[in-house]
């Protein structure tokens, strides 16, 4: 079975064999039927011919005997002295007619005297003829050979009988001789029937065939079963049959045979019950019936023999066909097998596996040729692929390196400031490709100032990563210098926008956190605003005036915003890779979701928040391909418990108002109007407000005029705190370090030309302000002016004006 499934050749051969077998079967069946019919016809013809010829033969002999005896009788009737010449007549007749075995002339008894009777006999004994004369033939007159012709007065064939003398079956023809109308004598001739037996035995009847000869009374004269001869008749035989129907049938057959007409019939032989054909014909002279029995089995045997030969020939043919089919199948499958083997080896990379030789141009040949071509193409393809793959691998390796480098650009060591309990910061960057365009950055600019930034370069991949590297590095270095997010962004924008042929840009957020005060100074260049969490308030978006993306437009300006963070406040910076992360149905993660997550995790550590968001995004994506870099940065601000506040409440509270000025004198009216506005809001007296304004102006002009060693733009931040008791203003600049409080008192009496620069201004500030302090933080000068509300009213009122 497995061979059948495995071998095409065997299947093909089997299919052919089955087909041919069916055809052979059909042919054999057809030939069986037609042969049977033919043989039946032949049997009938043969049976008819045989009975006819046998009957003719018997008839000719018996006819000859009849004629001889008749002639002898006629001759005897004419003999004047018949009795004396009877023996001569017998002798000469027997000599001339060798068919006759014996002959008798019996004188009919005349009158009552039997002594007058005579009987002359002659019989053939070896080559001689014996003669005999009987004077008292009384017994013989009672025999049929005399009795029948005597009373029937016509020639008659007796029933056959066994002759003891010759131990042979004999039959006698008896002719009555009349003289003057009186029965005078009977002349008989005997012939042996042995020759009939021989003749019937020699009939070519085939196996099982039988010839039988019946007397006119149905007695078996000749039968293959010798015991039946002369003992049985058809009717006695019928009587001995067990089955009544067989008995009736045989009786019926006997009657039909004895009717005198030739015929044929199909019947079952009485003893073996085998079907057979019977042909019969009557011998005219004696009324005997010759029957020829040919068993149907003979036909079957012949048919079977022929069919067997046919079948044998067919089988041999089929075997040859099978062999041929197998050969054909193998010739087809051998190259296929070789091809399969070669294909296996090919699959394992062995291109030298031998292929079968192309010997023909048939389908297998074509397949072989195609296979060869395929191998060549494959070899070429693989070699090309190898080259390409090598190149790709190189690129991939380079990309991997680039990724490492890129990831190396951003600080990756967490916690970054393990020694600082007031800072909890964590960040994460997951590029969508090998290299990404996102970045985050943070650094302590000095002990009290933390720089944080996040950015997203337009586009992705290598170009984005390059720009990201540039942007990130640039922003950090600028921040380190200018320490003002808005100005830093302005500078970076100008730097990037210059020769920006690739029209790429960066959205970014940049902030600087005063770790001492919690003041966050920040600016946004088209980036998603960060979230502010904790500190007892709900999570909120840290709004900032939007600015254009970096590198998009040269000369763009950004505004700094300030926000004082409370203890435990947390900032979460992120890129649009978070909010625009898509699930398989292209649904965005969304800001709302981010907010929701942030709100539930306000109290957790920065790392947990980052990871929670990342996890949520990953869950949302549900296996969908990451389309954009995901970048997160969280920082929690905590007030260092050991830190001494410089300005009391103002250090912790966020300022009531913030103003950022550029280091240009043109900015002064803005300052003036802002101070006026704030003073009015705080309910400051106009004198105190004017003093404050003058003091601030004095100091800001001082910064603008002398504070910087360059002509670049710098931001000067002015922050205001006010309550019912006190008003406090901080001025912060990134100019050269200068502590005004360290200047000596102004000699107001000295000549003007001998006085120090700014000396009067500082003096004025000291005079009008309740508090005047300076500190240097993160390379920045911070000067704090404060006014007691009630004093300010009095002190401010007493101002120099």
């Amino acid at each position, binding site marked *: 079975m497995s061979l059948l499934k495995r071998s095409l050749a065997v299947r093909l051969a089997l299919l052919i064999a089955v087909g041919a077998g069916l055809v052979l079967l059909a042919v054999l069946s057809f030939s069986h039927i037609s042969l049977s019919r033919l043989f039946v016809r032949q049997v009938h013809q043969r049976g008819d011919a045989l009975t006819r010829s046998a009957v003719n033969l018997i008839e000719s002999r018996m006819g000859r005997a009849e004629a001889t005896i008749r002639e002898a009788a006629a001759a005897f009737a004419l003999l004047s002295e018949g009795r004396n010449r009877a023996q001569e007549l017998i002798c000469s007749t027997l000599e001339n007619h060798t068919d006759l075995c*014996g002959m*008798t002339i019996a004188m009919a008894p005349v009158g009552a005297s039997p002594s007058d009777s005579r009987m002359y*006999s002659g019989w053939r004994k070896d080559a001689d003829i014996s003669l*005999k004369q009987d004077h008292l033939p009384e*017994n*013989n007159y*009672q*025999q*049929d*050979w005399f*009795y*029948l012709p005597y*009373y*029937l007065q016509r020639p*008659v064939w*007796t*029933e056959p*009988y*066994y*002759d*003891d*003398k010759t131990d042979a079956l*004999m039959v*006698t023809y008896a002719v009555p001789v009349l003289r003057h109308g009186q029965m005078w004598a009977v002349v008989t001739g*005997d012939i042996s029937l042995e020759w009939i037996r021989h003749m019937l035995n020699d009939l070519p009847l085939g196996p099982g065939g039988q010839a039988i000869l019946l007397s006119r*009374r*149905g*007695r078996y004269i000749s039968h293959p079963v010798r015991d039946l001869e*002369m*003992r*049985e*008749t*058809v*009717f*006695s*035989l019928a*009587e*001995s049959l067990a089955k009544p129907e067989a008995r009736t049938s045989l009786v019926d057959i*006997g*009657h039909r045979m*004895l009717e005198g007409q030739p015929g044929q019939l199909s019947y079952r032989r009485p003893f073996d019950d085998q079907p057979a054909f019977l042909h019969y014909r009557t011998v005219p002279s004696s009324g005997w019936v010759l029957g020829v029995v040919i068993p149907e089995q003979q036909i079957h045997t012949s048919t079977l023999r022929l069919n067997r030969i046919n079948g044998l020939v067919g089988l041999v043919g089929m075997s040859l066909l099978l062999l041929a089919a197998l050969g054909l199948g193998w010739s087809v499958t051998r190259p296929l097998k070789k091809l399969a083997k070669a294909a296996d080896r090919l699959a394992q990379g062995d291109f030298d596996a031998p292929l079968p030789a192309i010997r023909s141009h048939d389908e297998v040949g074509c397949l072989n040729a195609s296979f060869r071509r395929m191998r060549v193409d494959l070899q070429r393809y693989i070699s090309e692929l190898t080259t390409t793959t090598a190149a790709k691998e190189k690129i991939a390796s380079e990309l991997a390196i680039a990724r490492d480098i890129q990831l190396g650009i951003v600080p990756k060591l967490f916690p970054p400031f393990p020694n600082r309990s007031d800072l909890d910061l964590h960040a994460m960057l997951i590029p969508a490709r090998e290299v990404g365009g996102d970045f985050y950055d943070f650094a302590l600019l000095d002990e009290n100032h933390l720089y944080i930034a996040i950015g997203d370069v337009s586009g992705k991949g290598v170009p984005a990563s390059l720009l990201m590297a540039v942007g990130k590095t640039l922003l950090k270095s600028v921040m380190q210098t200018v320490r003002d997010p808005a100005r830093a962004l302005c500078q970076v924008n100008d730097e990037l926008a210059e020769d920006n042929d690739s029209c790429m840009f960066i959205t970014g957020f940049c902030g600087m956190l005063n770790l001492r005060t919690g003041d966050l100074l920040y600016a946004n260049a088209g980036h998603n605003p960060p979230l502010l969490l904790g500190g007892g308030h709900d999570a909120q978006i840290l709004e900032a005036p939007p600015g254009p993306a970096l590198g998009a437009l040269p000369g763009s300006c950004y505004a700094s915003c300030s926000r004082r963070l409370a203890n435990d406040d947390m900032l979460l910076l992120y890129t649009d890779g978070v909010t625009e992360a898509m699930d398989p149905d292209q649904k965005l993660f969304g800001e709302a979701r981010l907010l929701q997550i942030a709100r539930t995790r306000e109290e957790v550590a920065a790392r947990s928040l980052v990871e929670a968001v990342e996890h949520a995004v990953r869950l949302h994506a549900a296996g969908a391909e990451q389309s954009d870099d995901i970048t997160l940065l969280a920082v929690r601000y905590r007030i260092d418990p050991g830190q001494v506040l410089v300005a009391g409440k103002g250090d912790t509270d966020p300022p009531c108002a913030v103003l950022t000025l550029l280091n240009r004198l043109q900015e002064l009216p803005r300052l003036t109007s802002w101070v006026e506005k704030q003073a009015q809001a705080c309910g400051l007296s106009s004198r105190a407000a004017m003093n404050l304004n003058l003091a601030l102006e004095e100091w800001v002009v001082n910064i603008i005029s002398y504070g910087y060693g360059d002509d670049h733009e710098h931001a000067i931040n002015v922050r205001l705190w006010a309550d019912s008791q006190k008003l406090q203003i901080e001025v912060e600049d990134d100019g050269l370090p200068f502590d005004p409080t360290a200047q000596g008192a102004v000699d107001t009496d000295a000549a003007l030309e001998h006085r120090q620069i700014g000396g009067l201004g500082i003096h004025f500030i000291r005079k009008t302000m309740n508090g005047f302090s300076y500190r240097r933080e993160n390379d920045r000068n911070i000067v704090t002016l404060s006014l007691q509300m009630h004093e300010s009213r009095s002190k401010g009122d007493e101002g120099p004006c």
Partner: protein
Amino acid sequence: MFWGAVSRRWVLVVWVFLSAAVFNPAGAAEGKTDALTLVLQWNHQSQFAGYYMALEKGFYKDAGLDVTILRGGSDVRADRLMAQRRADFCSAMLPTALEMRKTGLPLVLLAQLVNRSNFQLVAWKRPEGSDGPAVLEPSDLDGLRVTVWEKNFRSPYLSFFRGWGVRPAILPQYYTLSLFLHRGAAACSVMRYNEYHTLLQNGVSPEELTVFNLWEMGVNLPEDGLYCRADTWQQRPDVCRRFVRATLAGWRYARDHRKETLDVVMGYIHREKLPTNRPHMAWMLDEILKSIFPAKDEAWTFGVLSRQSFRATTQLLQHQGRIDTPPAYEDFVKMEAAQ
């Protein structure tokens, strides 16, 4: 043709005679077994089945008898064998036996076996072809050729014709029915157990025939009986008795074991190469037994000849001139042999 057969049979007879002389009753008187010979009235056939079975089953031997059975036939003259004391017992028909007494052979009847006659006259229903006149009654045979056996077989038929007032043209009938079968005669005589069945076996169907059963039409002569010479009976009554009893036992056995009997009969047939067959012998056995053993409604006794039958037979023979003075029943019939 027949010379050879006849001469050979004579040789056999001579041999039997010689053997009979060697084992003669002289020795039997003092020896344990008595050798004796039975001659039948015809060829071996079922007609004599009882004798065969008595021999075959050892009834004779058990009776201290060493019995030789000689066949009869056209070539055997039983009367001569009996007269010449070459045979001790013979089977014969009652008329034949009575006629033998006339010729000086004083036979006595030891057992009457066939009490019911088997004589039949069969006629072609249409002797002259299908268009000719039909033979349905005995009177229809008037003027027609009828073959009848010769001699003592003739008596019942003559009695029948006379009884029915028929005057057919009687032709002699010998050993075959060939003249009748050749339609050379309109009717012929047959024995119920033998020739009638032969006709059927020659393809004649019963429908073609009109059959007259003589025993039903006024002529019922007893047939086969067992006889011995009167002096044998006087000198060796004991042997006779033993022989008769064993014979009757043989017949009873034959009646009760027909298949076995038939086998034995066929053995005789085959040994003698007789031209007959088993179905014919079966028919004969059945028919002869019917005429030996009375049916319930039949009056005779097995083995016994009644005085009435004896008288009827003697009267008929006397009337036909076949015997002169019939013997006295007591002189002729020795039924005590069976006792």
